[in-house]
């Protein structure tokens, strides 16, 4: 299980991050001030630290200096959007810099990238007899390569990452096609149909009426 430390003094935001990362199967620890974070880091190791900059007691930059020798990747999450602040954060050794307000998808994507860069999260996703290598952008069924278009591959990966969770149409569309959902779901429906055919997951890839799609492993 991948352990992530969330250092953020705004409880609503901390909870928001924990809620979404938790749904992805990460184990999250939340702390609300810099001192507390330093104490935790002394005795525990984490695969990733999400760090706010404006923190009570010890600020994010100071904490980063403290974390660096521990060799844990750090992503700054901050309202400071000025270029200088970003550059400062990145030159100090942060892996990435997320500016508030952020989109949940963006947060998850950046967390995923950093984890893979540190080989914490494997670039391999698997569901039953299907395996996806997100790095190489290839998919296999029982070791036999599947002929999937890039969009189909992304869609499959998204569904596998959210096994047993209903994903709403609009959200899937916006995530995969990276554009505003305009009410036309036929593109998405078409891709789902082709996926079912190509992967043989017809039974597991459920249509949730009035909502979206869900990949179930109980079948």
């Amino acid at each position, binding site marked *: 299980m991948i352990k992530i430390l969330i250092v953020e*003094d705004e409880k609503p935001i901390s909870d928001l991050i924990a809620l979404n990362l938790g749904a992805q199967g990460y184990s999250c620890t939340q702390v609300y001030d810099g001192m507390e974070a330093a104490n935790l880091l002394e005795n525990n190791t984490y695969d990733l630290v999400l760090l706010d900059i*404006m923190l009570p007691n010890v600020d994010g930059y100071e904490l980063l200096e403290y974390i660096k020798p521990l060799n844990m990747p750090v992503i700054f999450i901050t309202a400071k959007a000025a270029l200088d602040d970003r550059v400062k954060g990145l030159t100090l050794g942060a892996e990435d810099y997320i500016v508030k307000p952020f989109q949940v998808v963006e947060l998850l994507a950046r967390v995923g990238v950093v984890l893979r860069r540190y080989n914490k999260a494997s670039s391999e996703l698997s569901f039953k007899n299907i395996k996806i290598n997100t790095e190489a952008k290839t998919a296999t069924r029982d070791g036999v390569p599947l002929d999937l278009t890039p969009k189909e591959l992304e869609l499959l990966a998204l569904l596998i990452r959210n096994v047993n969770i*209903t994903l709403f149409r609009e959200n899937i569309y916006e995530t995969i096609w990276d554009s505003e959902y305009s009410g036309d779901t036929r593109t998405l429906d078409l891709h789902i149909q082709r996926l079912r055919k190509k992967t043989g997951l017809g039974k597991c890839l459920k249509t949730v009426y009035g909502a979206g799609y869900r990949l179930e492993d109980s079948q």
Partner: protein
Amino acid sequence: MKFRYKVLIINMIVISIGLGTIGYFMILKNFNLAMNQQIENSVEENNLFQASIEYELLSLMNTDSYSKNVLLDKVVEGSENVYSNLSANSSDLCVAYDSNIIYSSTQELCNEALWSTVDVGMKNYTIEEKDGRYYIYVSSSTLLMDKKLNIINSRDITAVYDMMKQQSNYYKLLLVSVLVICSIFMYILSTLLTKPLESLQKVSESFGKGDYDARANINTKDEIGSLADTYNTMADSVVEHMDELKGMVARQEQFVADFTHELKTPMTSIIGYADTLRSREMPREQQIMAASYIFSEGQRLEAMSMKLFEFIYTKQHSISPKKLSIKKLMNTVATSVEPMLTAKNISLELITTDSFILGDQDLLKSALINLIDNGRKASKEGSTIRFTAKEENDQVTITVEDFGTGIPEEHLSKIWDAFYMVDKSRSRKEGGAGLGLSLAALIFDAHNATVDVYSKTSEGTRFAITFPLYAEEVTAHEEVD
């Protein structure tokens, strides 16, 4: 043209005119003296010639028989004698009788006008130039046998003119050398004198180019020194003014930065939870949590925008002060805060005075409510807040004192900053935006009130606001009228 060159040229002109005039008159005077000497000498010589010739003639005339021709021969002979005897020097002698030259020791003869016009018994002289040489001619006139006998002597006085020329040449040389030396001195002097001006100019130039630390370092006690002082004072006040503006801009930038940060925090939560809710199905309790956060953060945003509006309004509008009763003001405030205090079971201890101040009732009310609200947030349930007033030395002090958590010392200096919160999470829970105190500070400042804060952690906080009393003599004056 540089100032030093101007000084130099003016000085050169003045010195030339001065020395030139002096030299001219000196040389003229010398020349006149030498000339007079020469004239005197010539006249003396003429006297001598005349006396000698007359003597010769007298001895002849004492003999019995003499004719005109003999006499004239005698004159010529006598003249020759006299000339050879007396004129060892450069003088020449010439004798004319009845307007005819009868003897001349030289070919050079003077103008006939000289000896033809001179009266009998008188002497006359003239100065003439011949071939670059100057001669003085002196003529005497006597009667010999009813005819005029002129004895004319001449002298070469070129030396006097040469001397004058030499003097004037020498003087010119002297004048030029003095001028050169004086010019060098003047140049050095004027350079020294204008040096402070030049350095002042350099300083103002670099100031103009943006080196705002540049100051004139001139210690002379003259006009330039005082100009430098004035310049430095001006530069200081410019820099001061500029710093003030910079500070203002920095404060505004800080305000905007803080404001954006404060805005982004609830925005992140609202957008994030809404985004989560719409992207997938979640357990019921998670949905409720997300919705609650959206609600509470939305409320926080609304509270903040209200406060911000109030803040900007206060900042942009000048107060309209009226005579204001402290008692009335404090009573209205007490009535307003009562509901929120009773909700937390906090009692308000109210002591007022019968003082009057000059102020804006609505603004002061809002500021005082803010202070009491701060006290309420810091207080535990069942605690007390003291809201008192005291008149002292033409001043009235309103005090708001709570016995709550207090403010840690390191935060005390920052509590007036916009968006600053001592305890963020608690303040958020209570719906604070970090603007209350900066708003109050703005209002008190507009009333010329001074604010003192005393606070101790876990003992409480006391805000003391001191207003100047309403000037009573104005009212008294009105009553007399």
